[in-house]
């Protein structure tokens, strides 16, 4: 416990030195990076301690004002979620050394490091909170510090917009969660996060808590249709902050949902099915929207929605397993859910880091303006390829392991003799398969267009320097670490699942996870991924050998004999995705505008296609504009003077007090007199 404490403290103060030093000095950045690495080391030591010795609880400070103590509680589940917080936090700080140099980002640098450190500590606090008040405190701290970290480049209009949207979403989530914890307090009698007894809990109250938790945590986790803040925030933030947002911050919503669900007794099957359907919709729609994106970080942001969908599917399966008293579904679902939480944090951060490297070198994130970077940035390209294979759930990498567990669980719901109601849950498997194939299409598009082929450098609007090299070593090292962990989990799934098993143990209704090996053979899978990895390496070696042995000559790509081919004639990412975007047109509603060449001396032709953020641009913004117009009457009350606002509050309180008066007795009193 003391380790975790020190870790939080170190993370919080890591950004402070920069505020008191010269803005152009390099040392505060190095100090804050060192402090974050120290945070990760002490934190991970504490996590290992918890994994070995079990749960611990401690009171931070008693607070008589709100009638609750600030408590911290560390169980293996919390420790499991702390691992990505510390790991991604520290690797992001190392990445920051090369990515956000004081010489370039003189003003924003110190603030970014301050908010970054507080964000890491806040997320740690959420995970270790032992009661609702501490949890909400951490939640608000996380929202505010993330807002600060997202909008460091606030001179850009888009970034400001993204920051505000995040802040609004964050506070809607906060309000819903306050309501949820109040209901929880009503049911439990205290804010402490202890399991509720089914006797004390009316089913309607329990459903209300569940729905509020799903909405409140869903907003933070970016669950469709509450994801509207997500793409802008991920695209606008610095890349290592995007990695934290996508890899870790979204998982806080998942953590909250798991935590609350495990406190409620006997969840009905309908909850599981609801989460499962929500997850399937998120998985497919998330990747569908990703296909229509032109900007690499926006594309990655939509893939976060897809992966949250996969995590939700696994969680839904687990809940269904509890409701239907099927320990195998529960264990497979929960293991897939937790392992995917780790995996997504790892490969998504890897992808964001390599995307950040590309953007920092070429000054554009527009996929269609890049190309051929694999030759000059081989390490970045390799990192992106590994991340892409992992996120598509392809063997032998880590994404495949968690998706494999989920498939196994889903297929088991359709075993012979299962009632048709449960067997229908297995229909989530084709949905997951569809999401996986769409992801392959999307990442072939992204990887192929950015790193393969030729640079589309003739584009006058692109400021692509000739042949940008790989980024600084401080940016490559965190990528290397994450890539290695992705490979390691893929090749040694049994080891990773041991940790997952430990995390499930306190919430496991069915005894130890040795059961997992009874349902599926993880070790056999591990052997197979190892064999596959070796064969792939062998295949690669043969390819290289062929190059040295059999190459006759090197010429340009075959061009049909066209006289002046240019690299701008390459297939673009937009064209590559056009077929699928067309098929999904009912959902994506792309705007297309084109000007065809006409006549003997045609004017320049152009074509553009753009996919909106459907919920934000088609629903919320019109709704807000409508509300703003209709509610303008109320502006008379908005005077801008503090005294008036205090008067409103006083009036509101008086009205509330009046409603508490015994009005029911009034008629009797009138009759009596």
């Amino acid at each position, binding site marked *: 416990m003391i380790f975790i404490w020190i870790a939080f403290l170190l993370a919080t103060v890591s950004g402070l030195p920069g505020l008191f030093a010269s803005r152009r000095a390099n040392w505060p950045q190095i100090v804050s990076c060192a402090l974050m690495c120290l945070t990760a080391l002490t934190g991970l030591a504490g996590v290992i301690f918890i994994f070995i010795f079990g749960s611990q609880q401690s009171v931070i400070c008693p607070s008589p004002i709100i009638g609750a103590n600030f408590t911290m509680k560390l169980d293996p589940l919390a420790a499991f979620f702390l691992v990505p917080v510390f790991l991604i936090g520290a690797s992001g700080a190392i990445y920051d050394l090369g990515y956000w140099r004081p010489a370039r980002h003189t003003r924003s640098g110190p603030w970014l490091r301050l908010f970054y450190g507080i964000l890491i500590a806040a997320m740690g606090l959420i995970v270790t909170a032992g009661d609702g008040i501490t949890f909400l405190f951490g939640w608000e701290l996380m929202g505010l510090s993330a807002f600060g970290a997202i909008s460091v480049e606030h001179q850009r209009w888009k970034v400001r917009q993204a920051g505000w949207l995040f802040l609004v979403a964050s506070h809607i989530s906060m309000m819903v969660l306050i309501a949820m914890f109040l209901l929880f307090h009503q049911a439990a009698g205290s804010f402490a996060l202890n399991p509720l007894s089914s006797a004390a809990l009316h089913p309607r109250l329990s459903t209300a808590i569940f729905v509020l938790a799903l909405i409140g945590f869903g907003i933070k986790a970016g669950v469709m249709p509450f994801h509207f803040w997500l793409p802008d925030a991920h695209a606008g933030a610095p890349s290592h902050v995007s990695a934290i947002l996508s890899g870790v911050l979204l998982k806080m919503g998942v953590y909250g949902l798991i935590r609350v669900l495990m406190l409620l007794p006997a969840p009905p099957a309908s909850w599981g099915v609801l989460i499962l359907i929500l997850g399937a919709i998120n998985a497919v729609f998330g990747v569908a929207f990703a296909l229509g994106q032109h900007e690499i970080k926006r594309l990655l942001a939509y893939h976060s929605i897809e992966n949250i969908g996969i995590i939700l599917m696994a969680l839904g399966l687990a809940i269904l397993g509890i409701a239907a008293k099927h320990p195998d579904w529960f264990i497979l679902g929960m293991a897939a859910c937790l392992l995917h939480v780790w995996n997504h944090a790892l490969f998504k951060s890897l992808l964001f880091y390599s995307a950040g490297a590309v953007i920092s070198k070429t000054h554009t994130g527009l996929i269609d303006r890049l190309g051929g970077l694999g030759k000059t940035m081989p390490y970045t390209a390799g990192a992106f390829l590994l991340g892409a*294979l992992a996120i598509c759930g392809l063997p032998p990498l880590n994404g495949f392991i968690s998706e494999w567990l989920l498939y196994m669980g889903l297929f088991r719901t359709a075993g012979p003799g299962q009632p048709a109601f449960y067997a229908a849950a297995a229909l989530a498997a084709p949905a997951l398969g569809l999401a996986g194939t769409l992801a392959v299409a999307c990442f*072939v598009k992204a990887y192929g267009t950015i790193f393969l082929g030729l640079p589309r450098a003739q584009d006058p609007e692109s400021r692509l320097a000739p042949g940008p090299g790989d980024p600084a070593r401080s940016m490559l090292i965190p990528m290397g670490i994450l890539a290695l962990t992705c490979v390691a989990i893929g090749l040694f799934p049994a080891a990773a699942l041991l940790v997952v098993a430990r995390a499930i143990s306190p919430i496991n209704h069915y005894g130890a996870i040795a059961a997992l090996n009874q349902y599926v*053979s993880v070790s*056999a*899978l591990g052997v*197979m991924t190892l064999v596959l990895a070796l064969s792939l390496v062998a295949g690669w070696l043969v390819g290289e050998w062929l190059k040295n042995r059999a190459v006759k*000559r090197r010429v340009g790509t075959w061009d049909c004999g066209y006289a002046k081919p240019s690299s701008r004639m390459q297939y673009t990412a937009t064209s590559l995705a056009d077929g699928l975007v067309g098929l999904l047109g009912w959902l994506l509603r792309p705007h297309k505008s084109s000007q065809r060449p006409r006549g003997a001396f045609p004017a320049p032709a152009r074509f553009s296609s753009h996919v909106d953020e459907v919920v934000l641009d088609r629903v919320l913004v019109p709704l807000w504009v409508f509300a703003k117009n209709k509610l303008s009457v109320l502006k008379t009350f908005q005077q801008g003077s503090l005294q008036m606002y205090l008067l409103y509050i006083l009036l509101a309180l008086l009205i509330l007090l009046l409603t508490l008066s015994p009005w029911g007795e009034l008629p009797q009193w009138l009759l009596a007199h």
Partner: protein
Amino acid sequence: MLNVFIHICFLILLPPLLPGVINRVKAVLAGRKGPPLLQLYFDLARLLRKQMVLSSATTWVFRSGPMLGLVAVLLAGLLIPFGPFAAPISFTGDLILFVALLGLARFFTAAAALDAGSSFEGMGAARELTFACLAEPAVFLALLALARFSGVLSLTNMLLAPLAAGPLAHAAAPLVLVAAGLLIVLLAENCRMPVDDPNTHLELTMIHEVMVLDHSGPLLGVILYGAAVKLFVFSVLIGQVVLPVHTPWPALDWLIFAGRMIALAVVVGVVESVMARLQMRHVPILLTAACLLCGFGFILMLR
């Protein structure tokens, strides 16, 4: 052990025969003499001896893509049982690995195509990826139906279950639906008519052929061989569902298995001969039909 050896030999040696059979059937139905049955073997031997021309636009992805695709497809072939014999590698959950390996092969094939930096290859990659998205749910629905039928989650036990149940089992109808759906997937995934025309060299009408335009020499050989292995593996999958036959003599079983593969190649050849290639925009409808067939198969299994 002997059966494992024969399995591996069949997997490595037999696939190039299937395109030969298909082409012979097409030739006979069209009233032509046609190329020799073993033409693809000759082609492969010739291509492997040749030198190759590499585009200056390409990187290692272009060279290794075909190799990695072949490795993935061959490994998938080791997971699937041939005839009544268990596959060399079998464990609970290998069916997901099987599908994922085909996905891996697709990733590298499409990436290698994009590495050439040409519009033609890009076009082919786009089509391949698009149509795969529609075929994938059909495969999963088929696997679900088989899992429901057999109650196990390893390909060997799953695909040997129709054998144990006999040809006229209670689930014969859904199995036929599933097999029909898988046949459409086979035609689409292996770039046969009515989805793709393996004969034309007109880039605008092709999927697979256009993706490999810039590969030459040994690399082209590897691609052709990989495509044949993929066709073989898909044919095994369908054959196990439709025609489960088992005799007391293993040698006869192997012969029957080989005969069944050739029979399926004849079916593909006949389909190619009697059908024209669909317009690209109609292919999704055909693949949706495959999903529906497999889906109805699964629903029929639920009763």
